[in-house]
């Protein structure tokens, strides 16, 4: 006889679930919660998930271990009353000016107060107004909107291993803040935005740059060039009834043209450059056996994390800029003559799944000839807002191709958006024979998938090259400590700050379920499978440019010029 519990008269089998809440959700009841998150430790603070058993005993279902024979009701008279009261208490200390809030329409408080049936709040909001923290280019903190669910604190600590924010003070004075309430920009915060991704309200949100982009588009003297990151195309459709993980690049290009961007390019081209440059660097290091392992550098969250927490290992980071970091100065160099001829200025806007990129573009090593390479980073969430601002019915658009010459990108460059993608692309570059068989073999080396730490080894000639791929900064931290203690050794390490890679970046549409996460990853590999060009070093446009216009400029445009 299988173990089961009875929920609202329905029998639900226990199949390894760790808490009653999971069983309730399995039974088809979307029990409201604020602080519960399946990938974080159980916190039990919001008390919205309370249920009642047949003896009248009330408890929180998120922290209760299921025992066979339990009989639970999720919507008794008392539970209804208590849930409503908890909601009312939360709303009573919260700003209810929803119309002007950045989370209007995607806020858990709005959602749940409607579901639970709140039509009056009987208590006065007498809280003092606290100042916003706008110091970080990546995220904005608004403590007035915080409901103290603690998801951001636990995410930053448990999953990212950074711990830049935590609770301070006590009781109703409790606030979430960095230590000593320092501005976020002065802390170890890497800008990954994973806190914003789990925040149910507008307490932590993306630092948006939409207005200056509209302004630039409207300026006839500015050539606004836009580049689109790989991970964006499989997520932007989320808000427009497009199946999860479907490639919406074509529609996005059309929309961008309608919005008035002057040239639309694909960051995949930049990724191809990265593969060529980074592999060159790696091969050199292997040859001289110096400065190994090589750490990838395309993830700005990882770079900042390494520089602050593992400064002794930061010298191993590749000197290559990120794909956006290489592409933008190249674009500006490409338009240099045309700009002076036409009396225009070229600015580059990049559409990224990432909030840390907003910090990357302000780094000294992302300036060329005194000019900031990328002018604005717009996250996927922001481009969705801009599309909606214009009223474009995205799902009905006809697809169009990006502009030449930079419209061509390889499948290897596209998979940069998922964990293991950079490594796989580098392995393709290292392959002697650009054959289909090799593609297949490389895909089986073990760099694909959601395992936290993936290890692989390949033979380069008669040398075994050991590779590690890690995602989520918490996992990266563990690996770095073992590397530092010389417990393990690798020649090449790929680190992505966000679990599953850029497809789950802080700028992507949030609250993606397990199916969406899977579809986004599969979506990128699908694009790769049907790409005519799969090896980055077979990108004909790129290869031609290396022989012509890029000659002599590779170092200046594509590397972080650390010695200067």
């Amino acid at each position, binding site marked *: 006889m299988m173990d089961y519990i009875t929920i609202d008269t329905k029998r639900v089998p226990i199949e390894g679930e760790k808490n009653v809440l999971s069983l309730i959700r399995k039974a088809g009841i979307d029990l409201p919660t604020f602080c519960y998150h399946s990938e974080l430790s*159980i*916190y*039990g*603070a*919001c*008390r*919205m998930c*309370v249920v009642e058993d047949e003896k009248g005993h*009330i408890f*929180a279902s*998120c*922290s*209760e*271990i299921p025992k066979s024979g339990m009989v639970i009701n999720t919507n008794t008279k*008392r539970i209804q*009353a*208590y849930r409503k*009261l*908890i909601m009312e*208490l*939360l709303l*009573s*200390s919260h700003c209810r000016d929803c119309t002007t809030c950045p989370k209007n329409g995607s806020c858990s408080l709005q959602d749940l107060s409607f579901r639970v049936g709140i039509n009056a709040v*009987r*208590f006065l909001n007498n809280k003092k107004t606290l100042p916003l923290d706008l110091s970080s280019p990546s995220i904005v903190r608004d403590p007035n909107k915080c*409901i*103290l669910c*603690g998801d951001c604190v636990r995410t930053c600590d448990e999953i990212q291993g950074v711990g830049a924010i*935590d*609770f301070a*003070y*006590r*009781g*109703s*004075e*409790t606030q979430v803040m960095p230590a000593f309430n320092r501005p976020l920009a002065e802390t170890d915060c890497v800008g990954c935005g994973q806190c914003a991704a789990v925040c149910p309200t507008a307490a932590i949100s993306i630092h948006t740059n939409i207005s200056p982009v509209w302004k630039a588009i409207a300026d006839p003297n500015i050539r606004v060039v836009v580049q689109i990151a790989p991970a964006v195309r499989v997520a932007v459709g989320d808000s427009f009834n497009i199946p999860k993980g479907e490639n919406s690049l074509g529609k996005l290009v059309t929309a961008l043209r309608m919005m008035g961007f002057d040239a639309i390019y694909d960051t995949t081209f930049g990724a191809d450059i990265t593969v060529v440059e980074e592999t060159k660097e790696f091969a050199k290091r292997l040859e001289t056996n110096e400065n190994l392992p090589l750490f990838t550098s395309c993830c700005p969250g990882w770079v900042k994390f390494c520089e602050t927490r593992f400064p002794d290992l930061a010298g191993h980071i590749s000197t290559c800029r990120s794909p956006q970091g290489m592409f933008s100065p190249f674009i500006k160099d490409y338009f240099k003559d045309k700009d002076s001829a036409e009396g225009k200025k070229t600015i580059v806007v990049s559409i990224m799944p990432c909030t840390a990129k907003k910090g990357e573009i302000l780094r000294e090593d992302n300036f060329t000839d005194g000019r900031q390479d990328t002018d604005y980073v717009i996250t996927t969430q922001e481009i969705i807002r801009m599309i909606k601002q214009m009223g474009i019915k995205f799902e009905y658009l006809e697809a169009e191709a990006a502009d030449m010459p930079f419209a061509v990108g390889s499948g290897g460059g596209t998979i940069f958006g998922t964990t293991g993608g950079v490594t796989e692309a580098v392995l393709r570059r290292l392959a002697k024979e650009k054959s289909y068989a090799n593609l297949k073999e490389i895909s089986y080396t073990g760099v694909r998938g959601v395992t936290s730490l993936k290890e692989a080894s390949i033979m380069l000639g008669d040398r075994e090259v050991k590779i590690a791929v890690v995602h989520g900064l918490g996992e990266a931290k563990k690996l770095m400590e073992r590397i530092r203690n010389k417990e393990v050794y690798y020649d090449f390490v790929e680190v992505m700050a966000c679990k599953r890679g850029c497809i789950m970046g802080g700028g992507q549409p949030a609250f993606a379920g397990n199916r969406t996460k899977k579809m986004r990853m599969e979506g990128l590999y699908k694009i790769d499978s049907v790409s005519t060009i799969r090896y980055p070093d077979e990108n004909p446009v790129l290869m031609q440019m290396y022989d012509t216009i890029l000659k002599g400029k590779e170092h200046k445009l594509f590397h972080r010029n650390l010695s200067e």
Partner: protein
Amino acid sequence: MILMENASLEEVREKAVEKMKAENCRILICAGTGCLAGGSEKIYSKLKEMADGIEGVSLEFGPEAAHVGVHQSGCHGFCEMGPLVRIEPWNYLYIKVKEEDCEEIFQKTILKGEPVERLMYTQNDTVYPQQESIPFYAKQTRRVLKNCGHINSEDINEYIAIGGYKALSKALFEMKSDEIIEEVTQANLRGRGGGGFQTGYKWKQVARQKETIRYVVCNGDEGDPGAFMDRSVMEGDPHKMLEGMIIAGYAVGAQEGYIYVRAEYPLAIKRLKIAIAQAEEYGILGDNILGSSYSFHIHINRGAGAFVCGEGSALTASIEGERGMPRTKPPRTVEQGLFAKPTVLNNVETYANVAMIIENGFEWYRKLGTETSPGTKAFALTGSVKNTGLIEVPMGTTLREIVFDIGGGLIDDAPFKAVQIGGPSGGCLVTQNLDVKLDFDSLKKLGAMIGSGGLVVMDEGTCMVEVARFFMNFTQNESCGKCVPCREGTKRMLEILERITSGKGELSDLDMLEELGAAITATALCGLGKSAALPVLSTLKNFREEYVAHVTEKRCQTGTCQAMRKYIINPELCKGCSKCARNCPVNAISGKIKEPYVIDTKTCIKCGACMDNCPFHAIYIAN
């Protein structure tokens, strides 16, 4: 000098007994925090000075030169009458002693053995020379507090002399771990911190965990306002508690113990540090205790001013250096407590009961108390009662016996109104409950709880709404802020109570208090939240008329709630001198010279300046 075997401890004991016997006269000056505040330090210095100069003086009762021992002891318990001085062998207890009294005490009692009657407790014209005969003490059964006030708590030898650490020897050398757990289980020792959980069962659960690293933790946070039972044990007889912890450690296989003491108890921390150091010197703590091959080390952790850290999981979080917030259970502390290891977490008083159970057996222990709550309980008796102090009675003693027989009745023999039991987590007991036998289960039936043992006696002059507001204010301040019902709910309840006590309440507020109280009690995460509404709900149930008068008539019958006081000039006593009007800061008083003046109650801000200034006592507060 490390004692390498049990026999060595016996030797030490014999020597210590001799040393104590050699003191023909023992003076024990109460050096608990209360009496220290009353100036007992000076009394100690004076008497010690005098005793040191006694060399060569012969005393009437002894053949050789007398040896006078002057010691500072722990709390004697009769706090209302402090500073207290106990003199043995006659067991005289001198009350309200001042430094000037030392000379007479010395000359009469110490040199001649005569009592100083004026310093003795008197009731109904009867003088009580012996401490044990005083009604306050006679009705008590002091077991946990037995040595408090009778030994120098900063000398381990005195503890050993009176039989201390005998239980530890028995446990280490004559009993097995599970036998110890069985003894404690049969004794049905229930947690004295307020939970009333069966101690033996708790220990059993820890002992049977697979994890081999275990901890023993003592909760010395004692946050209830007005409760000082644990403080007195830690200050007055720390070894009794330590002995219990070591036995517990041995029983469950723990190697380390932690005592979490609130930072506001510097004296207790000091005495504990001394006690631990002295125990370590003898090898009673440390590696290979008394040669038994059992090792146990104890550390002291100080709190940092958070009442919530008295909650088990918040306490362990605090020891670990984390933010002191309770966590969800499971996992329970017995499975994953301190540092995620199986942990025995018990209260100071609970540990203080362990040694006597092991030494005398569970049958002896169960002779006192009730069937479901054997043993004794220490209570802090405070409030409008004549004899405030620290008492210990068998479980099952009635409230009437405590308040009237031991407490001596209410001050000025005022009529009894209520007793708040259990502090901010407790409810109130009223006249109908006076004959209830106090134990864990009987109180639960009444919607109250023993809690840690704080008793506040209230007379007719106490405003029950203000009592509720006071405790809710405390709870709101101390709420950790993690869960919504406690953080936001108690805030709103406090706002309502503040409105009511300032004369701005509505009848609907009472329903709101009940609604919030029910929700918070049912849904809060930890014990603090779950019991936060109890003082309010209990006073609302037993004294609803007072609440109703506050909101409908804007009247506080006791005159406590300042905003609702009605200052009235008695026209028959008023001479029309106008002094009140001239002192009124808001010009609320008007009248003509030589004619009775009148206060405009709407303008009046209830400051009381008029009443203070009236030379004819013509102004009163209406009830």
